[in-house]
């Protein structure tokens, strides 16, 4: 078995775990990140929902229940973390836009408005989509995008369809990574007689450098263009994930990808080491601190059994809202089913309660009382708590 030593090991490669890892690696700690595989972030819109339920997310934080992870982190930490995120994404060439003091609305594939806070630059022009003509471009055979959902709801729209010879969003994104394809697309677009207004495309404008694709199309058509987020797997979600992962590697972090934690070793109130099982030989990593960022049910950090919920790595106590019959409400569209309050309760330093492990921290959607669907605070909560847990961990390590 391979044997490795670190200052800190982060378990879980989603937005929370990556945020914590980037912070700690950036501070010069020997940092390792262990992940079973691509995170749930790749299934997301890539937008940073901070607090969709309030017009001003920052003001809204103070109105959340006291046990909400944002309240534990504190408003200042949330702001610092999101500003650091904006700086980081600028550095990675995938700039995000938006104001922490005011939510924005972007167009969805069914013509509704999604409330969010920070959006990738490819969706910036989506804001205020109802005030101008929108020309929707679709791709022949694309299975996850049907413009009629949009055109039937929005008055001032038109549609044209480009044949790119592939039917998946990922296939299209790969095509947009080739400059010659972008040229062909631009030539086709320029040939259309479009009324003044904006162009909307499903989110497929390349995985490598969408900013350049955006600029190229803008230059050749003289029009604003924006992406509409699509059903999973999602190109903007994958871009966000890759940008964060690359930022971590650029800071000298060590990555164990495709590795599940097979066992943990604890002694006298400390986590000592974890054993990882992956595609290669198993290895053991010991560290001075550990951060748990394995996500909620979708990410696999929590697993529901017929009558209880289990935390999958350390078998920590999980706060569950009552018996199974109470987990879900009858109405599918309820603003949040009780089950999503499930998770790990933490102290003010983001250490899990009741386990007595002083060098273990938790962050992201595994935290109890997050209620991400109800508050619409997905990636915002991951960034804020990832950063807060990393800072608490930094204090322990220094």
């Amino acid at each position, binding site marked *: 078995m391979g044997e490795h030593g670190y200052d800190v090991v982060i378990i879980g490669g989603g937005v929370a775990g990556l945020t914590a890892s980037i912070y700690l690696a950036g501070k010069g700690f020997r940092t390792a990140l262990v992940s079973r595989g691509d995170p749930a972030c790749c299934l997301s819109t890539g937008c940073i929902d901070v607090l*969709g339920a309030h017009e001003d997310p920052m003001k809204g934080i103070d109105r959340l229940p006291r046990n909400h992870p944002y309240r534990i982190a504190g408003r200042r930490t949330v702001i610092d973390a999101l500003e650091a995120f904006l700086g980081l994404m600028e550095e990675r060439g995938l700039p995000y836009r938006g104001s922490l003091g005011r939510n924005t609305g972007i167009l969805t594939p*069914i013509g509704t408005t999604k409330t969010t806070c920070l959006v990738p630059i490819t969706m910036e022009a989506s804001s205020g989509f109802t005030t101008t003509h929108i020309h929707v471009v679709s791709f022949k055979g694309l299975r996850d995008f*049907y413009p009629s959902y949009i055109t039937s709801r929005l008055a001032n729209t038109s549609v044209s369809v480009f044949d790119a010879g592939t039917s998946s969003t990922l296939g299209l994104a790969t095509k947009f990574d080739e400059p010659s394809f972008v040229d062909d697309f631009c030539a086709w677009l320029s040939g259309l007689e479009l009324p003044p207004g904006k162009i909307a495309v499903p989110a497929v404008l390349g995985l490598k450098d969408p900013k350049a694709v955006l600029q190229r199309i803008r230059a050749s058509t003289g029009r604003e263009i924006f992406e509409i987020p*699509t*059903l999973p797997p999602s190109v903007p979600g994958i871009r966000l994930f890759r940008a964060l992962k690359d930022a971590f590697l650029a800071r000298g972090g060590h990555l164990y990808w495709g590795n599940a934690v097979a066992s943990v070793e604890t002694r006298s109130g400390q986590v000592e080491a974890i054993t990882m099982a992956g595609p290669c030989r198993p290895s053991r990593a010991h560290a001075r601190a550990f951060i748990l960022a394995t996500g909620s049910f979708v990410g696999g950090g929590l697993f529901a059994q017929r009558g209880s919920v289990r935390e999958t790595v350390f078998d920590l106590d999980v706060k569950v809202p009552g018996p*199974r019959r109470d987990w879900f409400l009858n109405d599918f569209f309820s603003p949040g089913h009780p089950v999503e309050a499930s998770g790990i309760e933490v102290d003010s330093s983001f250490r899990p309660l009741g386990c007595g492990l002083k060098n273990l921290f938790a962050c992201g959607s595994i935290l109890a009382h997050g209620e991400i*669907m109800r508050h619409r605070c997905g990636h915002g909560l991951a960034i804020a708590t990832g950063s807060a847990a990393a800072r608490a961990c930094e204090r322990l390590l220094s």
Partner: protein
Amino acid sequence: MSTRTDVIIIGGGATGCGIARDLALRGVPHYLVERGDFASGATGACHGLLHSGARYAVRDKEAARECITENAILKTIAKKCVEVTGGLFVRLPGDSKRYRDEFLKSCEATGIETVILSPSKALELVPSLNPAIEEAVRVPDCSIDPFRLCLLNATTSRRLGGNILTHHEVVEIIREKGRCVGIRARERLTGEIKEIRGRIVVNASGAWGDRVARMAGSRVPMALSKGSLVITNHRLTNVVINRLRPPSDGDIIVPNEAVCLAGTTSIPVDSPDNLEIDPSEVDTVTTQAEQMVPAFGTTRLIRAYTGVRPLLKASGTEADGRSISRGFQIIDHKNGMISILGGKLTTYRLMAEKTVDVVMDVLGFKVPCRTAELPLEGQDELSGYPLSKRLSKLDDIVCECELVSRSDVQRAVNAMATPYVGDIQHRTRLGMGPCQGGFCTYRALGIMQEMGRVDPDVSLSILKEFLQRRFKGIRPALWGDQLREEQLIESIYMGILAMGQGHG
């Protein structure tokens, strides 16, 4: 404007469709009117078992005899609907040995062939069985596809001039001088009313029997009993597994296509509409099924469903659902309406035959029934489940769970000219897999919009309605990987598509 015919059948379950085929083969003009799609009542909500009759042999010898006879007939005429799985009755430690003796005796008396298997023989046949079983009895149970059965029966009716109107709800039975002379039916989506005049109205509406009879000024005594079942993500057994004990909750597991169904519960209900499944019913069924097949407890359940048994109330008793006979009864109301009540999926053909015999008497025709000898039409065109075919155009797949392609959907939409996405799901199996249409219904509706079959304006409300209906079945059985998937689906509709934020 009204249409004329001889017989109007109300109800598109197995019985109604069986009656339509029988009438067609005897040359009688008819209309069938169904509120939803085929099999949307008890037919589609049962466990898809073609009974050997063994389950009823002890208590109800007549029903058992009917079952074993019809079992043999359907195996011959409906080959593409029946999977000849065989069945086992397993006796677990603590199950009465006396009941077992009585069971064997009753099977013999009713002509149901049994073979006693030792635990090791039974485990050889079904390796997933609880190794602690005391013994197993093999019987000729099979699994049957109720929806397909309805479709094929309707095929013959249509070919011979019968008219079948699905998605039409009967809102009135027209009476003149106290006699039923026709019906008015409303198309569900457009609200258009059609008037059909006929000489006889056949009430084959199952659990809705009393409601329909009332429209004709009559009553039929019914004891409605709800039965809930669960569906696993994959097959755990290729043989039907019954518990060798008196009928009770959770005593059967039936393999069906790629999944297993387990049931049932039996709870009296007042109305056949708006049924809810309580999570405790799922627990009961799962716990019981787990005793016969231990892996059941850890297998992913994709959803639960429930149906109402259209049982006849025995006169003067308030008997519970299980002790009521599974036999059927035909009531001539002497006002132009004939009701067919009770019975079960296995005996649908016999029920149809006897009903049509009565109809023929009333009409004064004399043509013998031929439904037992002629194979169901249209079976040759059924594709079965050829994986090679489904995988040949991978790029075109819109339902990844069941491997249904865009062209499959387009073909079904064109063939049926239907605005109902449910019709497409039933006929292509789109949305029947683990995600339960979470991804592909949005796509199917999008394709229907492109084809001009669904008004894009209403497509969001259709999608919304679908998601609510879907959740009703999923909610009671949500844990494990299914809960995980459900959280993802929720994040798609609530997060990415922003439904439920006061839009759409």
